């Protein structure tokens, strides 16, 4: 069931069209990644969905919103660089946000403590935010986005600025949140999207160039591939494989030959036999599938 429906969304800045009419829908309970290279329009899209920016054209419809209801009640938003009142403590800021969202004093405090625990900064609850590290601020940012139990949370590059440990922790946190709410987050890190998302939206130059679930994407772009690593120059062996009847296409990088094949089972047998017959100096034989990165390069490269 769709939670939100976006049609013909456009945004221009001083005559330059940054978002060129995009359409998509977000389904309830899913975790969706908005992927794209820097400057693709990810932040602009999220800002329009959150109401911080007016679209130049197009509509954003929340299926659940009652007539005249402020959509801000339904969403939680974490900007790329969250900023807080630095003179407040983490607990104070969350309680403040909760009170603004309409919770009572006691309720706001209880919910804040619950969220501080969830995001793992409970021990720093009374510390001034000015003293928080980048990772702690990011987590506080996620907590404040959740305070009013929104139906959709939007996170703009939630892990890009974090070190590997912080990144791991935030990803695990998002994984846990999937059960409670719909998540839309933007990133340019493909592994993150691949790891926790159900669906992907590829944004490139202000257009959605590819979208779908991970499974759909794999199927659509799937091409079984065998990577062969040789000692020394691999070019001389590349010819042998490129003329093979099971080969679809081939690419050579240094000592690595990547062969895209039509049938992985037959190709594996045939290639291994060929290698031993010809006594090729093989170092590594790898059957791999297309990664999101390959898909990304394919859709963005064209």
């Amino acid at each position, binding site marked *: 069931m769709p939670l939100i429906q976006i049609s013909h969304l456009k945004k221009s800045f001083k005559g330059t069209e940054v978002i060129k009419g995009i359409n998509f829908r977000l389904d309830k309970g899913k975790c969706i990644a908005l992927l794209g290279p820097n400057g693709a329009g990810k932040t602009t899209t999220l800002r329009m969905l959150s109401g911080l920016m007016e679209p130049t054209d197009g509509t954003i419809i929340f299926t659940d919103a009652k007539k005249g209801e*402020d959509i801000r009640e339904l969403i939680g938003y974490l900007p790329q660089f969250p900023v807080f009142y630095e003179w407040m403590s983490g607990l104070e800021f969350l309680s403040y946000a909760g009170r603004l969202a309409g919770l009572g004093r006691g309720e706001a405090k209880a919910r804040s403590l619950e969220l501080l625990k969830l995001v793992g900064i409970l021990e720093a609850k009374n510390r001034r935010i000015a003293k928080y590290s980048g990772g702690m601020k990011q987590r506080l940012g996620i907590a404040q986005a959740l305070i009013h139990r929104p139906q959709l949370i939007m996170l703009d590059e939630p892990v890009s600025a974090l070190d590997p440990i912080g990144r791991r922790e935030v990803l695990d946190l998002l994984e846990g949140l999937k059960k409670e709410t719909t998540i839309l987050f933007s990133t340019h890190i493909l592994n993150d999207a691949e790891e926790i998302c159900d669906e992907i939206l590829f944004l490139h130059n202000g257009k959605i160039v590819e979208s779908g679930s991970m499974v759909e994407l794999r199927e659509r772009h799937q091409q079984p591939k065998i990577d062969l690593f040789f000692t020394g120059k691999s070019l001389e062996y590349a010819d042998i494989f490129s003329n093979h009847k099971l080969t679809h296409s081939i690419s050579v990088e240094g000592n690595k030959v990547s062969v895209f094949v039509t049938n992985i089972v037959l190709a594996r047998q045939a290639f291994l036999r060929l290698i031993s017959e010809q006594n090729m100096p093989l170092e590594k034989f790898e059957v791999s599938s297309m990664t999101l990165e390959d898909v990304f390069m394919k859709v963005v490269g064209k």
Partner: protein
Amino acid sequence: MNQWLTLFQKELIEMWRNFKWIWVPITFILLGVSEPLSSYYMPQIIDSLGGLPEGTVIEIPPPTASEVLIQGLSQYTTIGVLIIVLSTMAILAGERKSGVAAMILVKNVSYFSFVTAKWAGGLLLLWLSLLIGSIATWYYTGILFDWIPIDVFFQSYFLYGLWLTVVLTLTVFFSASLLTPGIAGFNSLAVVFIFTIVTGALSNWLEWSPSQLTNYANEMLLSRGTPDDALPASLLTLACIIILLWLSVLIFRKKELAS
């Protein structure tokens, strides 16, 4: 209403944490009180600086209590204005620039409440600081010179407060419409300055101008009566304040929070 109070309360706490509740009243006390003190101790001050050459006879007529109080209060229209503008100019522009306004307003927070709660916080600080400062000035004028009737004093306090509220609201207005606190502050000072000059030059025609209020307050202290134009000028000022505040909300809402 609950939301408004939460926003208002946050302003009060913030002003406490960054010591505005301490330094603004103290500055107002020092500004005002320095006048009766320096007038009273002028002969001693001159003596301690080496005195006048022997034989000079300069008659300095001792100022009246009203004159001293007027001198004291007039500090608030110069340095006081500067303090109000400097302490208010970042009130909206600063939060928008840092991005924290977007963090708050992406939630279901009314723009009207957001702006007016901030304004009300500044208003409370202003009227309380002015009250403490001018009562101290009134008190020192009383013990060193002569007592001015408290009702006359309060009426002029009210007129001074009203004029400074215009300054405050104007600063809030510029802070809502501009992105840089410094430029908002500069614009506020420039407008107040030009406005005062123009009103001064054309005072015969601009009797109801808000910046006349302090002149009426001074007249009141000298003559112990209420000038005829004080009431219409006050009402017009009140109208200006409401319009400026309303425009502030309107412009702040219109401006995109993220750019």
